[in-house]
């Protein structure tokens, strides 16, 4: 291996149990012609507080990989451990920001967030619940739109509500499946910055799927690049160690930015080019 930037396990990581550990994890769907392997032999550790981005061609199993963390998919071989215990089912400690927002359209922005808190933390007083909802709506700049119904909100505002809902219940792991894919460029940059700020203050662990290399380089500590399916695996992991807090201008002036970017592009379009792209 010549890729100097590639590391699968951080050599200086502490010996303590990582927050998340994929151990020889594989997942195959049963089909009439026998099992169809989606993921194979995934070995990877995530430390608490890390921001991880996952990139790879469509259909390579990125979503399935994150679904094994959220608990919506079960590995058929190996396991995924959260603080040493295998993940059994979905739970609010691993909150998901769904690809299509998954907000309830008959409720207001406020009620969507409130429903999450009422479900996860019913023991809080009404006042405390209210304060948490308003705090998180304020965090994503939606204080004024709190009482609007979801259908009255733009795509960017919906994604903000979805993020506020996810963060309000204080998950240990925040899972985002291409959260900004459907947004315009300006809204996307705004939300990326808001997400970084919130991550900075809340110190949760983030797993995020993206199609956008620049987005990953701006946000992530490490970028997981997946090989093509079937039987996809982790091809390479880039460590992105720009100092934080990051500014877009600063990192784009850093020569390392282009080194990383070219490495990722080379991985996606030369070494693991998609069939459609190659033809």
């Amino acid at each position, binding site marked *: 291996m010549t890729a100097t930037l590639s590391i699968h396990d951080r050599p200086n990581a502490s010996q303590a149990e990582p927050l998340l550990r994929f151990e020889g994890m594989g997942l195959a769907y049963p089909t009439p012609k026998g099992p169809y392997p989606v993921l194979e032999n995934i070995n990877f550790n995530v430390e608490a507080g890390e921001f991880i981005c996952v990139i790879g061609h469509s259909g390579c199993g990125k979503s399935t990989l994150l679904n094994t963390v959220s608990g*919506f998919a079960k590995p058929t071989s190996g396991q995924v451990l959260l603080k040493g215990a295998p993940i059994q089912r*979905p739970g609010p400690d691993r*909150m998901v920001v*769904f690809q*299509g927002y998954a907000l*309830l359209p*008959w409720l207001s922005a406020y009620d969507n967030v409130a429903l*999450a808190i009422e479900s*996860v933390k019913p023991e809080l007083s009404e006042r405390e619940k209210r304060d948490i909802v308003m705090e998180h709506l304020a965090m994503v700049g939606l204080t004024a739109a709190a009482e609007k119904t979801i259908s009255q909100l733009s795509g960017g505002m919906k994604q903000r509500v979805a993020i506020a809902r996810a963060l309000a219940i204080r998950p240990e792991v925040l899972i985002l499946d291409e959260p900004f894919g459907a947004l315009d460029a300006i809204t996307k940059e705004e939300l990326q910055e808001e997400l970084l700020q919130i991550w900075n203050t809340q110190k949760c662990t983030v797993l995020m799927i993206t199609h956008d290399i620049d987005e990953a380089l701006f946000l992530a500590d490490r970028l997981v690049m997946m090989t093509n399916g079937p039987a996809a695996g982790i091809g390479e992991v880039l460590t992105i160690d720009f100092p934080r807090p990051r500014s877009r201008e600063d990192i784009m002036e850093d020569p390392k930015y282009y080194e990383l970017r070219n490495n990722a592009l080379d991985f996606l379009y030369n070494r693991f080019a998609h069939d459609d792209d190659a033809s």
Partner: protein
Amino acid sequence: MSTVTSSGFNVAQWWKRSRKTILPPLLGIGGFLLFWQLSASLGFTKLSGPLSLWTEERTRELLLYPFFDRGGLDKGLFLHTMSSLSRVAMGYTLAAVVGIGVGIAVGLNQALNRAFDPLFQFLRMVAPLAWVPIALVMFQQNQPAAIFVIFITSIWPILINTAEGVRQIPQDYRNVALVLQMSRKRFFTKILIPSALPYIFTGLRISIGLAWLAIIAAEIVMPGTPGIGFFIWDANQNGYVSDIVLGVIWIGAIGLILDRLMAWLQTRIATGR
């Protein structure tokens, strides 16, 4: 107070604007009544024409005085209708409660759906009139039998639409409930019911029409009690054709009002989202 200003009501302008929406139905209905009256007057049919509602003295009295009550069965058509409506209300309410309940159960449970769907599909094809003898044998009493006929006629659209509404709850919403580990009760009230509500209302609207259609069948089994269905049946026994025509007009008008009422409720409740 000024009299007619430029913003005031202007008959000529109003007529110009709404002529296109008012004239065609007037012409259509007028033409139909004319055709009916002509074919009756010329003897093409034994059915009395629309004018007979006025020319037959017995029918004219029923037409002009819907509220009279001389005791027993000798009542105005409004009072007959109210008796029928209360019967429909009971059968329909029962159908709504059972239909929504069973619909949710069937919608949530694949096995239950496979077990009962063929039965539901079969039973919903049975005509109201066919239920009458069965209802009489089952209940041995007129009133429960009549309510059962209304119930069994109107339950199917509610049940089938509710089940479909529950099946159509987007996977995303179910996933939200899963990841938040929502209690069953919260899932019901916050996700299932609001999500399925438009489907439930579609079922309720179709069913109110069916419940009303079943009224004649239901009241055939109830001789000696007031009701619009029985009124028509009774007029038929006596050969009062113009009375039957008047009764049918009442039934059509009430059915139309019930349907409009449900449509209005539907837009009020199911679009507030």
